[in-house]
């Protein structure tokens, strides 16, 4: 007899090990789709078809293909949760403003860095909605896989169904729903945590960025850009980008270059840029300040 606690534990282990593997495979696959057109077409066709296959059929296919037990169940969960992750990640990273990607390439970031430092941070919301949807699927599949001997909450549900004893069915199913809701909340928290601070607000009132503890030998400056005809503030991405690259050594230069790119960028009407000057690159920082004619305000936050 499986106790509820054990069953819940197995359920969580099953659903989330599958989901973790799917994330680990799915995000690189989406990046690969971005890199190669052919791979993109193949991957999107397969994920498109895969998404249409009923879960129960997937579960059943495991019996002749991979046998029964815990591992085949994990495989089913990986397969069924992979598709939303790949699709959403690809949709997110491929729809990042091309000018931003150009700017990133312009300041000398490699293709890989453009993906890890610009495209992925900017599409976290899309990526996470894929993962959240997949988490719901994983919880459902983890119950169905009891048919192929995965164990977990499904055992209680199946026993309840066999005896048609409603309380038992509910005891099996309610923890699964609770887990789904809690996981959704946790994923939202994680998303917020991973999002670069300037991107978290709709109208970024540039907060003190996280991790400014050891800034003793640095001056921290905020430049505010405004155009006379400014109408909107579509800029949070760039400031986030600044924040992201802010950890690299050549930040001053990076900042200077990017700021010039910004000033020349017609679509950009107003922006708040978080900027840190390093002692060794201060001249680059000044350069940046002088060259940017749109710079309306320059505040030394701390120095």
């Amino acid at each position, binding site marked *: 007899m499986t106790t509820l606690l054990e069953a819940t534990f197995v359920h969580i282990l099953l659903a989330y090990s599958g989901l973790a593997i799917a994330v680990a495979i799915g995000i690189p696959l989406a990046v690969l789709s971005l890199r190669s057109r052919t791979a993109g077409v193949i991957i999107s066709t397969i994920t498109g078809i895969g998404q249409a296959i009923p879960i129960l059929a997937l579960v059943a296919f495991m019996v002749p293909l991979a046998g029964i037990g815990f591992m085949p169940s994990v495989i089913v969960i990986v397969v069924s949760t992979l598709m939303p992750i790949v699709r959403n990640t690809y949709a997110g990273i491929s729809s990042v403003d091309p000018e931003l990607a150009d700017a990133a390439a312009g300041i000398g970031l490699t293709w890989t860095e453009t993906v890890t430092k610009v495209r992925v941070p900017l599409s976290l919301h899309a990526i996470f909605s894929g993962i959240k949807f997949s988490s719901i699927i994983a919880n459902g599949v983890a119950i169905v896989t009891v048919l192929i001997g995965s164990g977990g909450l499904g055992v209680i549900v199946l026993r309840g169904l066999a005896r048609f004893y409603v309380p038992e069915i*509910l005891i099996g199913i309610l923890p699964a729903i609770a887990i789904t809701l809690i996981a959704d909340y946790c994923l939202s928290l994680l998303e917020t945590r991973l999002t670069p601070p300037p991107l978290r607000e709709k109208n970024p009132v540039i907060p003190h960025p996280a991790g400014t503890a050891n800034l003793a030998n640095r001056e921290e400056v905020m430049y505010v850009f405004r155009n006379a005809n400014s109408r909107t503030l579509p800029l949070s991405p760039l400031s986030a980008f600044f924040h992201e690259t802010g950890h690299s050594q050549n930040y001053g230069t990076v900042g200077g270059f990017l700021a010039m790119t910004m000033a020349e960028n017609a679509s950009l009407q107003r922006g708040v840029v978080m900027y840190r000057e390093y002692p060794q690159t201060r001249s680059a920082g000044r350069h940046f300040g002088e060259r940017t004619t749109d710079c309306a305000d320059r505040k030394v936050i701390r120095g």
Partner: protein
Amino acid sequence: MDTLALIAETWQTYHLTLRTVQHLEMFALSFLITVVAGIALGILFFSSINIRVVGLSTLTVIEMIPDIALLILLIPLVGIGFPPTISAAVLYSLLPVARNTTAGLRGVSPDLIETATAVGLNKRDTLYHIRIPLALPLITAGVRIAVIFCMGIVTLGGIIGAGGLGAPLQTGITTGNDLLILVTGCWVTFLAVGMDGIAGGFGRFVSVRFGGRP
């Protein structure tokens, strides 16, 4: 030939023709209800902001429950077999249709609406002759998701005694009948992918016909 004969025998023994008919009946019923109710809800959500907020958040909460859990939760309410399967399929698939309909209706360019008003169309005419046709590409995208959801849930219904092709799948799993699993699995996959393909083709047709968003 031997394989074919075996497949034919399995098909006969497990009444797969009957199962397919049941399956498609449940699918057709839940799908039709979803499309009609979903589009109606979408239009309702479009017309009233209060209803939209309440309705869409309710549907979103339902969507956060795993489909099998929803199916099973409905058992105490509506019994076992056919009714919970249909209700779960409808409840689960309503959101994509309703949300896409509302988004499509709201997304029509204000310039077009202004033009329509200028030529003397009232709100109702604008809705029927401008907004709905232009929203069709998005609506069909939602309907395509509904096809996938309904197919999946109707198949799951086999577990809770609704019949359909889920039933022989479960029989195959519990008795370890690999051939039955492969035959039914491939057939139900073929049906699902085919339906999805038809919905996709219809969506492309509508997008080309009515332009706008793909």
